[in-house]
């Protein structure tokens, strides 16, 4: 118990901060911060598995997040029948061609010895394949994008409950990670970082511009929800009764009936959005707890010990007969799959998919700051990092505003410096993140909650 004291203390402080936001700002803000903290925590757990357990740098987090989001769209949106009949066959044919192309390349790779001729054959297959696929898919894509472009213009999805996308998102991200891992894992640490960063940009470029699949920058809005809608809740009797009971002390102070009804309506509207957010919190919390149990079990299992051995000394682990390449690939896929879940969760919560919003600053580097600040190699640390950093990321604007007002009290409100500083308050979050990261790396390189492995 005592040895976990710092963990408990850190989490208590964090929860206390969120509750303070609830009291001083509003419970709505507090809950939305809390929900995004939970999603960030899932992402950091994914990154932590790769970096903390195995020492692999993955700067492609943004790509997996976006793929998870794409999964949410492809699972939950109803299929667009017209688009399918307009160009579905072309798309399916192109998919078959891609599979054929990959199989062809694999066949050549297996069948022939490494030589110049083989390289040329492979290049020919790929180039010819791309040309044929473009030829086949182009009319289909055009036809699909012409189907009611203001509303659909894409193939739609499967029309299943969006919750399933959390699993499918993991599969998508894991699949991509498998391909990337096969290609890039042999590279040195910093090359791997750059390669994954660039590959994730390619993924985003594809998601942004392949309108037939994702609607691209036109965004997909109004996704199905796993939680009830506020409007429906506000008309449900049990919910109104619940709110009435909850706020009875305040309501009883009001004697006038019409005023009381108006106040109750206000409470119901506020309560409904809080209730919906609580539903999400519950769902996210379940995911976080399941993942935490699994990752903790993995960390203390023989497999976890092997991963640390590989991380700390690759050659020695290799000499002991551990297959380093295979384990690296495995952990790369697992970590990315977890990030994929987070991506799907994020889109589920927002109810919309906006490919334009995926930027490396927010979805790759910020997650890395979370892992480093929280404590790499320690799951509780990584989750705490997600909470702390996201909390600061959101609350840095009010804090920055307060600081600006404090330091410029002597100046008039119209002074150009003060106006300029107040305008640039949103950018103080970058400053805070940067300075926070530098300080942590300098003075507490293992993070707030360092990795703690007992050797028995």
């Amino acid at each position, binding site marked *: 118990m005592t040895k976990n004291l710092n963990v408990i203390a850190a989490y208590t402080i964090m929860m206390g901060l969120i509750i303070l936001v609830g009291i001083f700002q509003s419970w709505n803000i507090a809950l939305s911060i809390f929900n995004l903290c939970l999603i960030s925590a899932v992402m950091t757990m994914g990154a932590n598995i790769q970096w903390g357990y195995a020492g692999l740098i993955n700067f492609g987090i943004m790509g997996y997040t976006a793929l998870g989001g794409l999964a949410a769209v492809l699972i939950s949106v109803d299929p667009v029948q017209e688009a399918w009949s307009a160009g579905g066959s072309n798309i399916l044919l192109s998919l078959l061609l891609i599979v054929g192309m990959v199989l062809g390349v694999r066949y050549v790779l297996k069948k022939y010895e490494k030589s110049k001729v083989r390289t040329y054959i492979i290049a020919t297959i790929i180039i010819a394949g791309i040309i044929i696929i473009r030829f086949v898919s182009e009319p289909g894509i055009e036809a699909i994008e012409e189907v009611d472009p203001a509303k659909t213009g894409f193939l739609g999805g499967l029309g299943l409950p969006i919750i399933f996308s959390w699993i499918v998102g993991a599969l998508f991200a894991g699949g991509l990670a498998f391909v990337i891992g096969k290609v890039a894992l042999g590279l040195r640490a*910093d*090359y791997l*970082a750059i390669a994954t960063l660039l590959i994730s940009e390619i993924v985003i470029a594809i998601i942004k511009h392949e309108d037939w699949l994702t609607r691209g920058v036109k965004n997909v809005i109004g996704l199905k929800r796993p939680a009830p809608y506020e409007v429906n809740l506000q008309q449900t009797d049990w919910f109104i009764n619940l709110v009435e009971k909850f706020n009875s002390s305040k309501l009883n102070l009001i004697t006038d009936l019409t005023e009381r009804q108006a106040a109750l309506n206000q409470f119901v509207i506020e309560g409904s959005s809080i209730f919906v957010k609580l539903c999400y919190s519950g769902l996210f919390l379940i995911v976080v707890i399941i993942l935490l149990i699994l990752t903790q079990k993995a960390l203390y299992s023989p497999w976890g010990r092997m991963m640390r051995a590989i991380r700390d000394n690759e050659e020695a682990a290799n000499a002991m007969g551990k297959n380093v390449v295979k384990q690296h690939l495995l952990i790369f896929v697992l970590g990315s799959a977890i990030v994929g879940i987070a991506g799907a969760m994020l889109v589920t919560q927002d109810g919309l998919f906006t490919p334009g919003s995926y930027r490396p600053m927010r979805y790759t580097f910020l997650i890395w*700051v979370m892992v480093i600040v929280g404590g790499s190699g320690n799951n509780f640390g990584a989750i705490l990092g997600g909470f702390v950093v996201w909390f600061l990321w959101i609350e840095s604007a009010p804090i920055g505003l307060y600081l600006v007002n404090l330091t410029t009290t002597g100046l008039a409100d119209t002074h150009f410096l003060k106006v300029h500083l107040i305008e640039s308050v949103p950018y103080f979050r*970058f*400053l805070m993140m*940067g300075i926070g*990261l*530098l300080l942590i790396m300098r003075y507490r390189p293992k993070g707030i909650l360092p990795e703690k492995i007992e050797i028995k």
Partner: protein
Amino acid sequence: MDYINAIVLLLNYIFVPALAYGSQLALGAIFVTLIYGILRFANFATGDMMSFGTMVTILFTWYFQSLGISLGILPTALIAIPFAIIFMVGYMLLIDKFVFKYYRVSKSPPVQLAMVSIGVMFVTQAVVRIIIGPSDRRFFDGEKFLIKAGEFKEMTGLNEGLAVKSTQVITIVVTLILVSTLFWFLNKTKTGKSMRAYSDNEDLALLSGIDPKKIVMITWIIAGVLATIGGALYGLDKSFKPFTYFNNMLPIFAAAIVGGIGNPFGAFLGGYVIAFSEILLTYAYKKFFMYLLPESLEPNTLVQLLSTDYKFAVSFSILVIVLLYRPSGIFKGKML
């Protein structure tokens, strides 16, 4: 005549823009490669350091403009650049003293330094946005075109015009001067040679009495010069926006690695490789074929290999291919 038209078309839309863009990338790539070769880490703050240098240039430009100083047909920014360089070198040395030095002295692994550079990236980005804001800024003044498309048409009587922006010429000329001075410095002077020795084998270099502090300082100074000039030229040619500069880091990295990281000459050529392939693969060749082919064979599509949306994706794909087949780059990296 049609052949000449076709060639002018390619010159106008591919060759000249790619040469200018390639020069801007090349300067950034040499910056990355120098840091990598001597300080031994991948600097993720590259794009933002360049944007910092450009910001200082813009501030000086505004100051000179307010004083009424101008270079006539040349942009005022050219006088501002030397002052910005001094400022930028100071900033670089400051960062090195307070941030990177600690990890260098304690011999941290390169990965840790790369992480630290992410911290620097955040801070620099914040500083730039707080000082000058995130919006698009143009700071070009003076004569915009060296050759105007219309004038060219009149002069030659061709159907196709060739427009050459003065910023493109400035970019190419300045890059050539800067890069040749740098190569002369690295190859002929004693300090340059000791830098190469340090990059090649640190221990051996230290044994032969090379002062590491001096090497590091000179590296940061050169880096500051490259970052400011590269950034300012890009800003003059296009426009200055902090977010674009951050994104430019990616093709710059691609150029440095394609050329063989640690090898400045490779990085220099890598910049052009990336720029030309980006533009060649995303250009619509319809008009070009219209000039060359008889009417019956004229293409009815755009004849575009990839849509321009995938401009960045091209350079990244090249990078991935190079990493797979020749991880040390086209020109064998790590030799400076």
